[in-house]
């Protein structure tokens, strides 16, 4: 398994501002992902964070709104840009382990946009 930390754990932000969420893993991993969980809902994949290249976004998510960086094999950031109340969610990063199948998740960042 992998130990994953996220910063911040929670934040309250004003409409129109941006927030950058950090994800740190205790070991090098090939695949890192960012998910969103809207209130009372399940998880939806935002994008796959690729090391050394642009992230791969899922349908309905765009780079201008959710820019992602992956400077090395243990770290990634997700920025939620120009926030609106609809962006209020829990944002989670996950990593794929050596078996190529099991995904482990970070503790999540709870974002509230006023």
């Amino acid at each position, binding site marked *: 398994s992998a130990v994953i930390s996220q910063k911040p754990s929670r934040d309250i932000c004003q409409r129109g501002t941006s927030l950058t969420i950090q994800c740190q893993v205790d070991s090098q991993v090939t695949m890192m992902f960012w998910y969103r969980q809207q209130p009372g809902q*399940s998880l939806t994949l935002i994008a796959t964070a690729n090391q050394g290249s642009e992230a791969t976004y899922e349908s309905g998510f765009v780079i201008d709104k959710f820019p992602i960086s992956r400077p090395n094999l243990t770290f990634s950031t997700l920025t939620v840009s120009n926030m609106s109340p609809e962006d209020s969610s829990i944002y989670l990063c996950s990593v794929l382990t050596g078996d190529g199948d099991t995904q482990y998740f970070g503790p999540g960042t709870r974002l509230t946009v006023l």
Partner: protein
Amino acid sequence: SQQGEEDPQALSIQEGENATMNCSYKTSINNLQWYRQNSGRGLVHLILIRSNEREKHSGRLRVTLDTSKKSSSLLITASRAADTASYFCATKTGAGSYQLTFGKGTKLSVIP
């Protein structure tokens, strides 16, 4: 798109009883994973079962998979108050895909 659907949406039991949650999915899968989430926090990985497996155990957890019915069940035996959480199933479709598709979850309440 929605792949897994958990059933029931909510379940309330007494401590010591067994809890069974079901997950149905629509397309062929490579594997299915169960996760637990406490109070809107991070997800804890519980167990992974592959498409060629029918049953797996881990402690008080028992997972079954019926690919002919496209369904899986999670059984928690001798439940404890600490098992109170939301439980999600997540499916991985193809061997070349890393994406997990999550169901809506079952909210389990274990009453002391």
